[in-house]
């Protein structure tokens, strides 16, 4: 797999994932006139400010009113537009979920929802602004697609692919500067998980979002102590790439899922649903343990709430003993 050659170096580039969203929108603005962008008073933070300046006629500032924004997007989609709804995930889809359910998902309209500031690594803003439930509430909606990219480059690809993807689409974005894991040549296809690293067949680590980086670091360190794992970037939570996940379970016989989201209802749960029905194997879940976050630095929070490299390695060692 073609990954960033500087991946394991200290000076690996770190870029906020949301930047990839803004870059994707700028490319779309040039080539697809159907694309319109909406925000609820978060143009700069969600990286849509540049789009709004270049194409004001294709931009709608909705004010601090996320429910209305989602409904307006449904109307725009019904009129032939491809709207991107941009806010923080705690507000949209957090507050606009009823509109996402009825006006968007039930109507199967191509509304694209970007939920920024997802995960505990939002940091100092604290628990109110750390979306840790959005994967659960979006993947449960029929006809909704859910994608969690691992870095800014993959986010740009997901923004472009999600725009032409038929139907409703949720894109989860993180706030912090995130190590760049992929390159422009790394394959990305909605609904297709990618094996990013393959050292052996002891355990399969299935990760999504920024923690794909931590998973790769953990895998490398585990190799040095003799535990050989594969690392899968499972960016599409729904529709999930069942084939890749089942094959990994068959090959390794044990799975650890890694995500910056509540363990309950998140990506790991979705993987467990697939494996329980097709090829049950011992699993460990790295994620938020049914708790709210708090203020702090991202690394401190990942450590405290059990989503650090150390915790991933612990989960791998534990699941090996259960094989």
């Amino acid at each position: 797999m073609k990954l960033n050659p500087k991946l394991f170096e200290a000076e690996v580039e770190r870029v906020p994932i949301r930047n990839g969203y803004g870059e994707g929108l700028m490319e779309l603005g040039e080539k697809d006139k159907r694309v319109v962008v909406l925000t609820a008073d978060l143009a700069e933070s969600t990286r849509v400010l540049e789009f709004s300046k270049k194409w004001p006629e294709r931009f709608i500032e909705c004010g601090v009113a996320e429910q209305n924004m989602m409904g307006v997007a449904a109307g725009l989609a019904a009129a032939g537009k491809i709207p991107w709804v941009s806010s923080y995930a705690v507000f949209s889809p957090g507050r606009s979920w009823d509109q996402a359910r009825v006006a968007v998902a039930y109507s199967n309209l191509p509304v694209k929802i970007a939920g920024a500031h997802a995960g505990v690594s939002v940091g100092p803003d604290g628990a109110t602004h750390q979306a840790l439930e959005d994967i659960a509430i979006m993947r449960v909606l029929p006809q909704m697609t859910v994608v969690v990219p691992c870095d800014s480059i993959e986010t740009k690809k997901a923004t472009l692919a999600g725009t032409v993807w038929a139907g409703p689409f949720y894109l989860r974005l993180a706030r912090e500067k995130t190590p760049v894991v992929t390159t422009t040549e790394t394959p990305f296809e909605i609904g297709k998980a990618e094996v990013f690293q393959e050292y052996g067949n002891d355990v399969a680590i299935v990760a999504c979002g920024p923690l794909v980086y931590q998973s790769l670091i953990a895998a490398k360190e585990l190799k040095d102590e003799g535990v050989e794992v594969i690392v899968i970037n499972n960016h599409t939570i729904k529709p999930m790439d069942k084939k890749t996940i089942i094959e990994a379970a068959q090959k390794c016989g044990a799975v650890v899922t890694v995500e910056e989201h509540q363990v309950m209802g998140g990506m790991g749960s979705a993987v467990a649903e697939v494996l329980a029905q097709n090829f049950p194997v011992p699993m460990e879940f790295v994620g938020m343990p049914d708790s709210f976050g708090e203020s702090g630095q991202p690394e401190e929070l990942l450590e405290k709430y059990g989503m650090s490299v150390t915790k991933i390695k612990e989960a791998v060692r534990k699941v090996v003993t259960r094989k």
Partner: protein
Amino acid sequence: MLSDQKVKELETAANEIRENIISMLLAAGSGHSAGSLGMADVFTTLYLSGEVNVRAVDPWNEGRDRIILSCGHICPGLYATLAQAGYFPKEELMTLRKLGSRLQGHPHYRELPGIENSGGPLGQGLAQGIGQAIAGMRDGKSYRVYTILSDGELEEGANWEAIMLAGKLNLHNLTAIVDRNNIQIDGYTEDIMPLQPLTDKFRAFNWSVVEIDGHNFREIADALDKARAIFENPTVIVAHTIPGKGVDFMEGKFEWHGKPPNREEAEKALTELRSLGGKIATE
């Protein structure tokens, strides 16, 4: 101005629509009687007077006016009117709320020709109307957007987010029609959550306001005409209606908001509605 002949035609159509609403609700065994009957004259004017650019023969024409029903629970009235206008066969009306029917208990987007939105959870329709109106205005299209809301539904805060945005954007191609019937499930609106002074509220949000008798076809048509002539801002037509209109024992009673008639009540209602003389349409 509607001709005398046209008004007569609309009266006849609205009466048949009301009869079908009663028959549908009886067959379904559940559903919302009062608002469906109360808005029958407005629905009739929207789809059958020629004031609005919608046609059953070409229901998804790109240039059509959009009619969005935000208060989806009064869909028996919408369905009966669409069937009356020829959007689908009237026989299908009796499948309301039954397994496999296109006539869902609350409307599903494009399940039937003419259904422009999924609706039922209140406070969502105006936002969708705004989306359609923005798209039309910015693309230089001439279609208009009509959104029908109930008065009780204005208690949903999301409506006021929408009313603010439409006022900000001066969406003069958008018309909201509020069914001011003063009732909701638990009682009278002014007891549950006072809405007055309703027209002042809309004016304060930069809307033009027209108040009408929602059972007077000429007033309804004139209000639609007037809204078309206003280029400064969006218009709200506050249509004063009588819930349960046409059926004496239902009129004005909030108890009929969310329930259907039983057989005896349906026969009585149909006798009052005259032409069927107490016969259920499917018999």
